[in-house]
């Protein structure tokens, strides 16, 4: 065997590649920065500026007018009391649900894990829809069992929002309860602590950060949610519905902006606090920690099984009743089976549904491109733009959908803005959906990029690969399953999102979730239900298709190993 070495090879011999790495990375960074400035920072500054703009010029007029009205303070009171109650219910129930799944042995855990997330597949007013069908004036209980329940108002909104926020709380708490150091539990046990005492002295303190994070997330979510109070609130108004009424009902943009700012401030604060808190949660578990194994305990397991199945039954029944109502002639008077409501012979027919699918697909594609690029720029390049870019990328996490949507209206319906041509088009709805969900999608991509780590880049560089070669041949092939997941996330969220897009839809750009709202508003409950069912079906179908694609890609690897 002969091995050749040309010991005279010059180190300075330049490898193929047109532009220098530095200029390419800078160009890509600028490419990532421009849209985020135009479509995130500009609308947010727009809403702030508009809040201070009055017919008399720049000033606090809008604030004084808003804060001076009794009605405003009643709405603040309503919003806060409803959000606090809803948060307590959702976080309290979700904590023990997550506890049941993480710390007890109960049957069919995979089913329980998925079932509790189903509200994420439905438009964010489906809970209100279900509650009305169940408990409303013409609801099943009042009609068949002769009750006299009035669900419209505070309790309806509170319960609907608690059900809506439940999966978000569950996801955070489940993650907090998943990490546990068995050694601490064993020590407590050998020292003679009973289960209740261990829960109070070990479990609760260890999950206090997750608990606090869940409270902040759910509170913001509920406080700024628009769909449920709109459908089931009745005379009970909250700040989120007030923004809608001011802007759409009375074209009071300035006052709408003030309430938008009022909603934005607590959301930003909550997000900052939550970030600080979750950073401390991670420090609790070290590399030496021993994972906790669930030991069977008959009494506890039976109690938690009953609890978990009751919760799942509640969540599923609200969805199931919507599905049921979509298949009966006239809920609850004529319960004979019919497919009539799926003819969609009202309004624009099925157009809103296909619009939604189109917008969601476009959002998925554009979103993957934008967040993928931004995450790569932030994590793989180093230049003066990457720091500010990473801050902007997660900023949407603190911006309620309604507020961002309002910012879009205020910024892009201004004829003086050259981007005004986008106003009233699907394109702007797609862009809004991308930036509304940007933070979470960015974090998913970032986590994956961090796991890929810098060593492959360094290996590629020392072997003579340029930045673009490394991206094309190494990073993207490793990242594609994550990017597909990001696409699914965008698709799902856009299909069901209501509050972000409500200000931008016009009769010619109608979306499915908005149709559900309008049909509910008109009292066409069965057709509204049918629309919701279609949205859920499309989301579930999308999930199944992508799951299959990933499984097939994974299966290829499996056969290779054999």
């Amino acid at each position, binding site marked *: 065997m002969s091995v050749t070495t040309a010991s005279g090879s*010059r*180190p300075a011999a330049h490898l193929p590649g047109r532009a220098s790495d530095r200029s390419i990375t800078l160009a890509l960074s600028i490419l990532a920065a421009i849209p985020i400035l135009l479509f995130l920072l500009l609308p947010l500054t727009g809403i702030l500026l508009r809040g201070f703009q009055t017919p008399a010029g720049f000033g606090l007029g809008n604030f004084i007018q808003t804060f001076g009205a009794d009605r405003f303070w009643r709405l603040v009171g309503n919003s806060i009391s409803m959000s606090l109650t809803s948060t307590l219910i959702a976080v309290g129930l979700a904590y023990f649900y997550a506890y049941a799944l993480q710390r007890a042995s109960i049957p069919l855990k995979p089913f329980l894990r998925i079932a509790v997330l189903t509200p994420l597949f439905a438009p964010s007013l489906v809970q209100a829809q279900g509650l009305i069908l169940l408990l409303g004036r013409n609801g099943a209980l009042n009609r068949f069992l002769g009750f006299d329940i009035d669900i419209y108002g505070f309790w309806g909104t509170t319960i609907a929002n608690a059900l809506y926020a439940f999966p978000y709380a569950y996801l955070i708490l489940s993650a907090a309860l998943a990490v546990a150091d068995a050694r601490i539990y064993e020590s407590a046990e050998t020292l003679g602590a009973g289960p209740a005492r261990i829960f109070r002295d070990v479990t609760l303190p260890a999950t206090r950060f997750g608990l606090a994070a869940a409270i902040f997330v759910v509170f913001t979510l509920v406080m700024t949610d628009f769909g449920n109070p709109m459908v089931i609130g009745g005379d009970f108004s909250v700040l989120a519905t007030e923004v809608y009424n001011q802007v759409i009902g009375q074209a009071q943009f300035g006052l709408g902006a003030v309430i938008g700012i009022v909603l934005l401030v607590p959301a930003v604060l909550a997000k900052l606090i939550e970030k600080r808190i979750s950073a401390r949660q991670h420090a609790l578990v070290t590399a030496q920690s021993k994972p906790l194994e669930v030991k069977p305990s008959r009494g506890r397991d039976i109690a938690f099984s009953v609890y978990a199945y009751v919760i799942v039954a509640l969540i599923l029944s609200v969805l199931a009743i919507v599905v049921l109502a979509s298949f009966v002639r006239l809920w609850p008077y004529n319960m004979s089976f019919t497919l009539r409501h799926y003819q969609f012979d009202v309004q624009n027919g099925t157009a809103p549904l296909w619009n939604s699918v189109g917008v969601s697909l476009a959002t998925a594609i554009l979103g993957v491109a934008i967040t993928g690029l931004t995450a790569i720029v932030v994590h793989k390049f180093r230049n003066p733009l990457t720091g500010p870019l990473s801050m902007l990328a997660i900023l949407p996490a603190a911006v309620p959908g309604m507020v961002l949507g309002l910012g879009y209206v205020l910024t892009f319906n201004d004829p003086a803005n050259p981007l005004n041509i986008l106003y009233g088009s699907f394109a702007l709805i797609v862009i809004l959906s991308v930036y509304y969900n940007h933070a979470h999608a960015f974090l998913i991509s970032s986590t994956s990029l961090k796991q890929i780590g810098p060593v492959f880049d360094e290996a590629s560089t*020392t*072997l003579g*690969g340029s930045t673009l070669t490394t991206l094309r041949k*190494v990073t993207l092939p490793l990242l594609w399953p994550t990017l597909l997941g990001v696409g699914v996330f965008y698709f799902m969220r856009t299909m069901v999102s209501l509050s972000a897009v409500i200000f931008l839809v016009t009769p010619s750009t109608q979306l499915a979730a908005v149709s559900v709202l309008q049909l509910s508003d008109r009292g066409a409950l069965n057709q509204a239900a049918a629309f919701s069912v279609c949205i859920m079906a499309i989301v579930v179908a999308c999930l199944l298709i992508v799951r299959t694609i990933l499984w097939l890609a994974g299966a290829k690897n499996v056969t290779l190993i054999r």
Partner: protein
Amino acid sequence: MDLSIHDLVKRFGKLTALDHVSLEVAQGSFVCFLGPSGCGKTTLLRVIAGLEEADGGSIRLGGSDLSAIPARNRNFGVVFQSYSLFPNMTAARNVGYGLECRRWDKARMQSRIKEMLDLVHLADQAEKLPSQMSGGQQQRIALARALAPDPSALLLDEPLSALDAKVREELRIEIRAVQKRLGITTIMVTHDQEEALAMADLIVVMSKGRIEQIGTPQQLYREPATAFVADFIGRMNVLPLDPGPQDGFRFAGTQLEVRTAAGGAGKPVAALGIRPEAITLKGLDTTGPNVLPASVRTVSFLGNITRVEVEPDARPGTGILVELHGMARVPEPGERLNIDISAEDLRVLS
């Protein structure tokens, strides 16, 4: 082409990772950077590779300055600690990656890949993915990948530390064999002194961003220049000199005779060093120039050697290790005896 490093400085914030480091690496030699973690050895390698930018100083290869040349154009082969094979590519594609980047034509590339896989005895693993190979196989592929584009030097960053002991020893021999066959200038970073002693032509011992000593393995073991090197390579008793004005070397009230050249030229003498095997235990009646009365503190029987810790009468609290080989008589703890420190092996440390 010789690699010449001059007055290199690298800071990370307040921390000085490389503190005016200068070094010559001769063409075709195998050099190890050795030191505890945080001593700057990996930083030095990364600066040479171009993965970190130095804050001062220069690196020249065969007369041409490397400072302005980015890592991808330096043409150095780098092997990383572990898991640096591209997981989405087969072994063969990994090996061919550097050639792809250099736009080699297909036929030439295929034959080079084959040649490299043969070199590391893994031709049969060509179509395997990294996840299907053992750690040792992965590192051999990484070596083949680094060598394929015919680099002007090979840089190894703790290439063996993630492997288990047996594989590590095999790969040690294999890397050295490949390096000798190709005659390629090689720098390896390691914290394992045994690895450095076994593989290197020249060892650079580093501590706190500075070079402590450069020498062959034998030189470093026999003639450590500083207390740090003495302690880091093998075991050495460090005997701090008695306080007070120095005329010669006084330890434990005795004037010790030293018959080796003083190391660390110019620097103040800090202590004397003596290897445990260079001390003999004698009866209380012996006399001589380097004989001190002492008592036995602990005795550990370790099979082929017995390690005895003694305490000089005049320096209570200073433990001195003595190694007895074979079947020598083993003293009892508490026993009083004399120790004889060999003047030929006593080192002056700075």
